[in-house]
């Protein structure tokens, strides 16, 4: 058998063995979709609470609101609410479920406001504390804009304020318009699953390789399998190459499965440069395979490999921007991301998927990953031991 055949024989055996392990299958095929769903749902909720998400249902209770109703309605809609107007207050003794959000005005609100009486809207929401704050800001912005409309229309109107004055103000062109567009070529800003899937995929590839990939080497060492391989007519380099190949195959299975699930179940769009996305993920898989091999060579026991693997994977994933958009982290974390392999992978994927910046834009990240792969593999070859 040639050297390549020897290495492929070991790789093939390793990947077959790994894919028969229930724990590996769990982390390879079951956990990623669960994490995609959970993280994507939660972070999708964050973005809808901040800007541009789906409109928030709101019950507006006001008896005879008068001519200000359309103005308030318009400003609420501009701030991502979907108001539904009710004439009477919800009676608490009714058996119906109360609305999740309500904004209640005193009766005759237009008349009161024009008469110089202060009108106070009472906002109630069942949202949790974080979302409550976002909703409060949006409600305040809506009503204060209405107040500015009323003040300006009244001041510029020769007679008592009417609906026609507000319509005239609304029809006036804004002297300063704002056109908002995402940078890069992509027109739809990725949120929710589009943000979560690449991050979780990068994290799980590292996690599986640093735990299953590393611990298997420790087990083989403990069981004497590596010693037996050492006595076989196979060189050290062939064995290491074979072990690396087995881990690489595992990483490729992980990435491939996550991409298929991300696309089919979560509608993930990978951008126009799919080949480069695959190249970056291939580079990432190679890096993880080398890291798994190195950790397996360093760890003394299976438990040590798993413990260190879980810790390192979580730490690198969080600091590299896999858990959350890196924008929300402090400055030092943002700087640190540029030095971490998880950061290189995420940065490359963002350029290709979020910015659609072209294949060439991710070349530096891919090069960094491949260089990291070679360096780690070199150290792993040196540290590889049979017992």
């Amino acid at each position, binding site marked *: 058998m040639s050297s390549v055949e020897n290495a492929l024989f070991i790789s093939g055996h390793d990947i077959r063995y790994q894919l028969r392990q229930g*724990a590996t299958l769990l982390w390879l095929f*079951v956990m990623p979709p*669960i*994490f995609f769903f*959970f*993280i994507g*749902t*939660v972070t999708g909720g964050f*973005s809808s609470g*901040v*800007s*541009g998400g789906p409109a928030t249902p709101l019950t507006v209770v006001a008896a005879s609101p008068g001519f200000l109703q359309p103005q308030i309605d318009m400003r609420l809609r501009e701030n991502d609410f979907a108001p539904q107007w009710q004439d009477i207050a919800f009676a608490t003794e009714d058996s119906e479920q109360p609305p*999740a959000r309500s904004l209640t005005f005193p009766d005759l609100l237009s008349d009161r*406001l024009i008469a*110089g*009486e*202060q*009108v106070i*809207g009472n906002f109630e929401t*069942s949202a*949790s504390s974080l979302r409550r704050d976002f909703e*409060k800001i949006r409600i305040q912005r809506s009503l204060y*804009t*209405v*107040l*500015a409309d*009323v003040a*300006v229309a009244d001041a510029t109107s020769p007679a008592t304020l009417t609906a026609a004055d507000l319509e005239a*103000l609304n029809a006036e062109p*804004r*002297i*300063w318009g*704002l*056109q908002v*567009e*995402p*940078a890069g070529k992509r027109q739809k*800003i990725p*949120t929710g699953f589009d*943000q979560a899937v690449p991050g979780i995929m990068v994290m799980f590839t590292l996690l599986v390789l640093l735990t299953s990939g590393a611990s298997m080497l420790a087990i083989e060492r403990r069981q004497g399998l590596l010693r037996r391989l050492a006595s076989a007519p196979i060189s050290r380099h062939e064995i290491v190459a074979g072990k690396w190949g087995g881990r690489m195959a595992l990483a490729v299975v992980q990435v491939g499965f996550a991409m298929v699930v991300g696309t089919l179940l979560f509608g993930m769009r990978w951008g126009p440069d799919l080949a480069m996305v695959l190249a970056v993920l291939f580079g990432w898989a190679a890096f993880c395979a080398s890291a798994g091999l190195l950790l397996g060579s360093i760890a003394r026991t299976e*438990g040590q490999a*798993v*413990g260190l693997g879980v*810790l390192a994977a*979580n*730490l690198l994933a*969080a*600091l590299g921007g896999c*858990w*959350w*958009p890196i*924008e929300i982290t*402090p*400055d030092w974390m*943002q700087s640190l991301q540029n030095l971490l392999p998880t950061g290189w992978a995420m940065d490359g994927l*963002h*350029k290709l998927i*979020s*910015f659609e*910046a072209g294949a060439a834009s991710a070349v530096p990240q891919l090069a960094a990953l491949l260089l990291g792969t070679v360096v780690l593999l070199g150290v792993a070859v040196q540290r590889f031991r049979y017992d």
Partner: protein
Amino acid sequence: MRILLQSMRKDLSRWRRDSSALLTWILIPFVIGGLMTFVVGDGAKPHGVLLLVDQDESLLSGLVAGAYTRGELGELLSVEKVSLEEGTERINAGDASGLLLIPEGFEDAFFDAEPVTLTLRTNPSQTILPGIIRDVTEIVLDAGFYAQKLFGEEIRSIRQASSTNEKGTGPSAELVSAVAVAVRQRIVEIDPYLNPLALEVEVAEPVDTAPVAPMGLLFLPGIILMAVMFSANGLAADYWVEREQGTLRRIHCAPGQLGAFVAGKGLAAIVVIGLIGGLTLLVGSLYHGVGTVRFLPSLLWISVSGLALFAWFSVLQMLGSTQRAANILSSLLLFPLLMAGGSFFPFAALPDWIAAVGRHTPNGFVVDRLTTEITSTAAWAIDAQSWLIVLLMAASGLAVTSWRLKSGFARA
């Protein structure tokens, strides 16, 4: 009683020797909790860069640029003036949260009531900071519109007088005086709407929820429960080791000792979980400044709840046909429970439906009450019913564990 104490001492002695497992159970929540605290903790704020291409270079464009660095907003954003080429290159490379282009003619548009459009290009890999930049820009531009509607005519007349005055002495005293009167008149007209605000909003505080706590503190109960869940699961897997070593078979053969053996393991679990959870609680409490009077009830709650979780993880372990199958089964439950139960994100940050489901999971129930204890104004805030529930959960879990041991697991 002797068997109970021996069982407890044996377990504690064995766990003391397995320092790598203990360290993992402590370190994982510490690492995750530490990072979470760095990111969302008290005082931790995101920070981004707004690239500004000011092609107008006027007083008004300068005022717009200044709006992003005032007050708390200045802690979130830094404004960098750049050329269009540099700005485009940087925003396309993801090197900023947004790029705002103020075109030439921005100030003239205000005076001449001629529309002009600003362009904001946002970083598509970010969500929060571009949203804030957009909101602030819209508010500033709205303010400009209203100011122009109110005072545009007067400002225009001053401007025209300045530009047409051949002597270069500026507008006449009469004109300035007339404009001042007109401006004052406008201010008087709008004053009743603004002082006090004629349209105000009051946000009703929910009557049945705990006081709003800092976001960083809200992560603490979930992180503690993560440590507790990892330890409880790891401790429960020990039944397989005991079985492999033949301990369970020997105990099963000795009449009437199985119950004491299980109770001893339960006591050992309380000690280990209490230590791990207590250490996490102590560090978290010191960092967040949680009052010392809440430490004891919180620790007690963590320990008793930890026993209940340990007992039911033990039952789960014994459902597997092999140790590997049992580990897969428990992992399959452990992580979804941690997610829904508020260990990855606090309930306050979860979508309502996930939070509602999560509060009904065993660990979510514990997190919910622990949050109450940690954030309430007085100590011992957890109600008696909740204490009763976890005590019953622990007792029933230990009883089912004993039954499962007797009915076959210990004999194998």
